[in-house]
């Protein structure tokens, strides 16, 4: 019954939500149905779309920077063993710090507005992408590389026919993790240093205690994040098929 599982989970989550609503009531929550309808109304509102576009634009730029910079850092560190060993604990440390503490620094450097949001999304995404890419390149089977040397493959052919196929599955995993973190970063950036975007709307709804709006925005963000993650996860598992 494997195909049924996601539907069972969805049903359980919706029932749980409805039950929680029945317990805490209108003061704190809205029912799933009324949240869906207020989200529908919000999406139909012409004043709402510019905020979505703003967030989307900031996120796409931040994520793109995170992927490019992450790979530019991770791939060479994976290829050069010594540099990789020097850098690894530094990357682990950077990954585990609460990057939200750096937001005043980002705002002081970039000022309030689009560049700060992009930078905030990017710094959240870069480190995991770099870490996964480094491990991916480092773990390429050395026998494959020696075989390539025996076959006298050119450096371009080595990259295209050996390194890329061998490292791609792990790199995609890193990009999937980086995607979620860059989204979180972008939203956090909007919550603190912006007058536009979904993060700003969320912050505004919070200070106005507008529960309907909070829930509709949360639902939209969760649905988007979960949807894209499901697609990336499917790609990730497809690429990892048959690997140990």
């Amino acid at each position: 019954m494997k195909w049924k599982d996601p539907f069972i989970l969805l049903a359980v989550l919706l029932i749980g939500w409805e039950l929680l609503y029945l317990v805490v009531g209108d003061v704190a929550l809205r029912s799933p149905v009324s949240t869906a309808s207020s989200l529908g109304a919000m999406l139909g509102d012409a004043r709402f779309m510019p905020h979505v576009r703003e967030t989307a634009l900031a996120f796409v730029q931040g994520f793109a920077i995170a992927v490019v910079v992450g790979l530019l850092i991770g791939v060479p560190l994976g290829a050069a063993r010594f540099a990789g060993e020097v850098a690894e604990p530094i990357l682990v440390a950077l990954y585990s710090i609460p990057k939200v503490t750096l937001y005043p620094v980002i705002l002081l450097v970039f000022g309030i507005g689009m560049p700060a949001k992009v930078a905030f999304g990017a710094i959240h995404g870069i480190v995991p992408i770099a870490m996964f890419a480094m491990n991916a390149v480092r773990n390429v089977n050395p026998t494959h590389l020696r075989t390539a040397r025996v076959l006298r493959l050119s450096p371009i052919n080595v990259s295209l026919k050996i390194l890329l196929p061998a490292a791609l599955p792990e790199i995609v995993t890193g990009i999937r993790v980086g995607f979620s973190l860059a989204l979180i970063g972008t939203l956090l950036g909007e919550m603190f240093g912006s007058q536009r975007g979904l993060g700003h709307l969320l912050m505004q709804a919070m200070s106005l205690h507008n529960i309907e709006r909070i829930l509709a925005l949360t639902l939209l963000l969760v649905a988007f994040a979960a949807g894209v993650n499901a697609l990336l996860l499917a790609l990730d598992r497809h690429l990892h098929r048959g690997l140990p």
Partner: protein
Amino acid sequence: MSRVGFTRLVFLLFAVGLLELLCRLGVIPNFTMIPPSAMAQSLWKILASGTFTPDIITTLTHVGIAIAAAMIVGTALGTLLQSSPATRRVLDPLFATYYAVPMYAFYPLLIVIFGLGDLPQVAIGFLLAVMAVILNTLNGLDRVPPVLLKAARVHRLGPLKTALQVRLPYAAPYVFTGFKLAVAYSFIGVIGAEFITSSRGIGYEISFAYNNFDNGVMYAMILFILLLVITVNMSLHAWEKRLLARRRRA
């Protein structure tokens, strides 16, 4: 010191030195960033004067509660889930999506449910941390060799005793990985939440100092958080490596 460690130290010193130089030469204006030496000096003064000690204690208490709750709840849920493969299969998509969802989006909701006190901040830290413990507990329990479980059956251990005396001890190094992540995530969750809304705590003080253009206090507190979190995480990281190495030798 190993060659790798030495190179790392030189690299880090060079990076800090470069930052110091750029700040001192005015390439980076003092309005944007103060030199690292000034940050350290300001931090020393703040810690010695004790102005922010209550905030530091508040934050650390919240982080501590979130970590402890995540450890207990996470290990228990992980152990329960492992004994029910059907439930686990149904929940699997939730596990895979959990960290993809921006947890801070739930923060307003948590405030609405728990009120404006300290609880929502602890809850965010807990929610971020608990899944790491669950996933790593499951990972560790999956590796328990069947022969150990058979031995437990021969000794007629009940399910609880089997879990406490055989399965969890075997899975301990993997559960520890979960605990390590729980520490990192609790810090991230609690401090992030303090930035959004709070009236005390380190995150609040950084935010307050930023709004008052008080770069001395702001950078000192940022430095404090970074040093604290990095020290804690690196110690756990080193300990975890030792645990795993011992397991491989055995």
